[in-house]
């Protein structure tokens, strides 16, 4: 089977999964007793405009007509990227609220995951290569210990020490409120300053997992005959390490990386709460607190799609990393 056919087959599979998620997202509100839009309208006791009720109804797909017509209308809206009006951020449309949150989340959690993965993988490979030396004796236990602390505790301690006591890091938000967002030095440096501490806490909490899994795979690979052959061939240490050992040991970690990237979109919930960082996780909490159903629905859908998309990218990356993928078994 050709690589392209494999990629398309996987894409087909994920499209079906996405369709299933969309459909569930449509039917779940309809299985709830009553009309969520009306009950929500009532809860706001006249603080909502009548147009908002219509928008809410439409957001839930509660338009007039038979169910299949509502369903088609819903699919059409989703395809156009319209998820209705947010209650919590009224009258902003859900899609623009999510887009803003997604930007911050991608910046913070995305970078943190990439850094953590890279650092953990490199250190794990080194620890395995330098087995029975101090590097392997200290690094894995130290990082695993760090990762074993409850994350919110780690984050709050970091915020307390660096933000409150030492005052070297900002306490909240993604940038200084007095600055206008724009492509200016002041704004960008403020964004970086605000991101460093939360990003570091994510890295500190997750790097141990990457390190340990890479180290263990790497130890297995180092025992393989092809690594011994590579050494016997008189190749340089660097080539044996990177091209033969790391290249093969990387494969399982890449799967984990793809999964982690998918879940980045859901935001690092605890990080964003502790640091009041305006990303997806923060939005999700706001949505739950204010019973902002359109926003919740939009967020859940984004998270589902992001996980599916990340999985597909992992499949594609695997095709490139592991030539055995997509070929007939037993060829």
């Amino acid at each position, binding site marked *: 089977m050709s690589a392209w056919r494999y990629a398309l087959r996987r894409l087909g599979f994920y499209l079906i999964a996405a369709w299933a998620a969309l459909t569930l997202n449509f039917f779940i509100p309809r299985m709830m007793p009553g009309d969520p839009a009306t009950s929500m309208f009532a809860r706001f006791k006249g603080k909502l405009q009548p147009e908002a009720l219509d928008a809410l109804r439409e957001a839930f797909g509660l338009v007039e007509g038979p169910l299949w017509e509502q369903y088609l209308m819903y699919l059409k809206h989703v395809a156009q990227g319209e998820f209705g009006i947010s209650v919590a951020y009224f009258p902003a449309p859900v899609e623009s609220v999510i887009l803003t949150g997604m930007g911050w989340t991608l910046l913070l959690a995305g970078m943190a995951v990439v850094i953590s993965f890279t650092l953990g993988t490199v250190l794990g490979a080194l620890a395995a290569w330098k087995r*029975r030396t101090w590097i392997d004796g200290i690094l894995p236990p130290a990082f695993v210990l760090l990762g074993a602390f409850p994350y919110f505790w780690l984050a709050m301690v970091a915020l307390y020490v660096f933000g409150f006591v030492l005052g070297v890091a900002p306490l909240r938000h993604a940038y200084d409120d007095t600055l206008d967002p724009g492509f200016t030095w002041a704004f960008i440096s403020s964004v970086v300053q605000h991101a460093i501490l939360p990003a570091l806490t994510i890295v500190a909490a997750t790097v141990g997992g990457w390190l340990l899994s890479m180290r263990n795979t790497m130890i297995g690979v180092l*025992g*393989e*005959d*092809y690594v*011994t*052959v*590579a*050494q*016997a*061939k*008189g*190749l*340089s240490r660097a*080539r044996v390490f990177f*091209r*033969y050992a790391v*290249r*093969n040991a990387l*494969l399982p970690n890449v799967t984990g990386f793809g999964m982690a990237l998918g879940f980045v979109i859901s935001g690092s919930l605890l990080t964003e709460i502790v640091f009041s960082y305006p990303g997806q996780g923060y939005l999700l909490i706001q949505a739950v607190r204010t019973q902002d159903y359109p926003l919740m629905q939009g967020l859940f859908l984004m998270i589902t799609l992001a996980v599916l998309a990340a999985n597909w990218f992992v499949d594609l990356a695997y095709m490139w*990393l*592991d*030539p*055995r993928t997509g*070929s007939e078994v037993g*060829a």
Partner: protein
Amino acid sequence: MVEPLLEVENLRVEFFTPSGPLCAVDDVSFTIGRGEIVGLAGESGSGKSTIAQAILRILQPPAIITGGAVRFEGEDLLGMSSAELDRVRWSQLALVFQSAMNALSPVMRIGEQIADVVVAHGQGTWAEALERAADMLTLVGIDRDRLRSYPHELSGGMRQRVMIAVALVLKPKLLMMDEPTTALDVVVQKEILAQIRELKDELGFSVLFITHDLPLMLELTDRLAILYGGRLAEMAPTSELIADAQHPYTRGLLASSPALFGPRSELSGIAGSPPNLGSLPSGCRFHPRCGEVIDRCRDESPELLALGTAPRVSPHLAACHLLGAAS
């Protein structure tokens, strides 16, 4: 006398296990001459693979060389720095592993795995190296288009041929083969052995052939060493060993494999199982399984002695008390 290509002298390899050191190779000495095919035969655990890996110094801990010398063209391999070792490895001595599936990296094209040796030893650019890799593939009977194949796209026999191409690309003087055909079916095995003999005549390297398959050895080798429990039991020119085996273990091995030609004979095995390195028997290591055991065997380890009195280039050596008793 002409200097041999490889001299192994009193080689000793120990495995440092949690329950104490185990001696896997004990005081083994042999030589390989230029253009010679020497066989190393023995049961599992007799130390035959360990010897090959010790010669290339690719033993992984807990296995450690604790004594002896390995000289290649007079140069001491065991005393070399790792940079010197990298230079000699593969350009002078190469090793073909038992399982070619595991000996090739699954995520690299075979062309790269042949060519990187050439580049690492400074014998050409990548383009030149790949050209040489293609020539090597042709030499071992694989289409040169296969350069871009991955190991999983080849059959077991083809992979073993690729490994032979990897081993021979720098035209080493000594090719060591550790059970190279064990995982292959008999037809492919025959083809590959015929090919090795052909390549040997063409390129003129020496071979150290390791296997437990005695009939195969008898067909292929010039001289044969029989290992038992990490020690040499007997070593002689192959034809002499077949005709006049001295050690009871060697005779047992010969009697346990059928002859394809000649009169039918009753097959017999050797009773018991190979010795456990952790609890080796006293005296001669073979004595608990030996049918001709005498009292001396239980207390005293026999020395490896040459048969006959006239000095020879390739003497017939055996380690058995019965030799002394008979003469």
